[in-house]
């Protein structure tokens, strides 16, 4: 499989974690974690439960603040990254629970919080529905998905279509970094394939991608780089083609399953 990002390994990181440490009470969730995120690169974040994957994702989206270390947004060092600042910079997270409004249509969900406005009357902002539908359709089409009905409540749609809508919504804003928290955990085989395709398309547009996954098949199918966390520390950070499943599992669990196949 050709890999357009391999040549980008020396590109400027768009987001950087530098020596990030995070405590929850006495528990050290992350210890001295440094990670460069490069446009177009899919980083698979793997690790056992409690290894600190979600904590790292939440720090990068501004929900948690690191106790030590810094986050760099491009050239800027940010001491206190908050969700508003992260969003403004173009960082979005797609959660496993999807976070869709089931009662609204696809267009309303994709454009939620940034509806195009046709007219203002005092504090009231009237939505330009035509533009809203067109823009949402464009964002969904960019992910290679066809959706006929942009108006019907999304509760009537299938799991795969809903996933596409959730990802499209995040990509509207996520022009720098998009994080997927176990994107395929609840999906069937076909939907998983479709979702992985979506993730690759998002990356191909030059967005840095983090994908948390427990499924090594998914990881080896799409990731460019694999980062394993174990007990809050990075135990592996390597391009995908320079590692093996055995090594990844060993770094996740701390247990060595014999020598790597050479």
């Amino acid at each position, binding site marked *: 499989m050709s890999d357009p990002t391999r040549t980008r390994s020396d590109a400027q990181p768009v987001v950087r974690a530098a020596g990030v440490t995070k405590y929850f009470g006495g528990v050290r969730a992350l210890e001295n974690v440094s990670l460069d995120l490069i446009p177009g690169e899919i980083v698979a974040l793997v690790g056992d439960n409690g290894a600190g994957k979600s904590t790292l994702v939440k720090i990068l989206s501004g929900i948690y603040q690191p106790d030590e270390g810094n986050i760099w947004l491009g050239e800027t060092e940010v001491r206190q990254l908050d969700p508003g600042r992260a969003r403004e910079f173009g960082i979005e997270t797609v959660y496993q629970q999807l*976070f869709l409004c*089931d009662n*609204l249509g696809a267009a*309303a969900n994709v454009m939620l*919080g*940034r*509806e195009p406005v046709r007219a203002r009357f005092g504090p009231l902002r009237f939505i330009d529905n035509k533009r809203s539908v067109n823009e949402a359709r464009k964002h969904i089409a960019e992910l290679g998905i066809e959706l006929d009905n942009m108006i019907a409540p999304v509760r009537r*749609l*299938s799991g795969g279509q809903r996933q596409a809508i959730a990802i499209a919504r995040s990509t509207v804003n996520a022009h720098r970094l998009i994080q997927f928290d176990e994107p395929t955990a609840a999906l*069937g085989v076909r939907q998983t394939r479709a979702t992985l395709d979506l993730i690759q398309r998002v990356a191909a547009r030059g967005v840095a991608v983090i994908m948390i996954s427990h499924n090594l098949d998914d990881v080896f199918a799409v990731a460019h780089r694999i980062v394993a966390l174990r007990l809050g520390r990075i135990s592996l950070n390597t391009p995908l083609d320079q590692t093996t499943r055995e090594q990844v599992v060993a770094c996740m669990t701390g247990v060595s399953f014999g020598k790597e196949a050479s």
Partner: protein
Amino acid sequence: MSLPSVSTLSKWMPGGGRNVGLLVTLVLGLLLISLFSPQYLSLDNGLVVALQISFVGIASLGTASLIIGGNVDLSIGSQYALCAVSAAMLAKELPVPLAWIAGILLGATLGLINGLMVWRINISPIIITLGTLTIYRGIALRITNGFGVRGVPKSFSWFGQAKFLDIPLPIWILVAFALVAHLILHYTTQGRHLFAFGGNKQAAEAAGINGRRLVLASFALNGALVGTSAVLAASRFGTAAPTFGNGFELDVIAAVILGGVAFTGGEGSITGVVLAVILLGVINSGLISTGIDPHYAQVVKGAALVIAVTLDQLTQEQQERHRKKLAFQERFPTA
């Protein structure tokens, strides 16, 4: 000539099948009543009924918005009483127009207090507003010593008794407010965000929507509408008593739910709510005009509500089955 099918109608009607059902029931009801009581379908009687429903109608616009946003205010009957007696009492001290305005603003304040508590204290709005239901009623009883307000100046009555083009002012206000509420709910970002917040609070906040502002604004607006309704009623009577609005919340919430607003939030239309308000008003007045024991009106209204929510639930379950089938087909395309 062929009639358009129900499915075509429901596509054309805002709010879909529910509103078609309400409209058909309303027309059938009117026909049935006019069979027994031919004078019911007259312009004069229409205005009488319209005036009767305008008080519940105005309040139901606010309560519909509140429930669509995932909240509810059970204290509106007490707000209604407190606003009515306060306006009547203030009219004895202040210029009358100021008393009207004060009554409306008091409603907004009482609503806002509920909103602040619902937002700050993470307890169901049903419980919190059940508490303020008692508190507000208690205050209304205390400041009046339990009696109707006496010695209200005659000019206080203008607001509720005024007419334009022979149509009483409360009806104009209901129509105007319903149009504005319809525009806000279905055409503005604020309305869209209210639906989103009622549909999935977490998703709405993840999209950057300010939930606090939405909750406070919808409670305060609801209070202002209840205040308007209460001042109109007090003004129409020329006075007010602390027992005003007993059971008002039940009438309003029944109309809102019958109108297709989901009690769980995120669903509903102003068209449906207005149709339901009219339908309940017609049931009330129609049964009286046909000479049937008016106590049956209660039974019929309650039955209409139960039938409507049952139909809703059945449709939803059918849709859920359809969705599950889709999901299954997606997973196992050959099955």
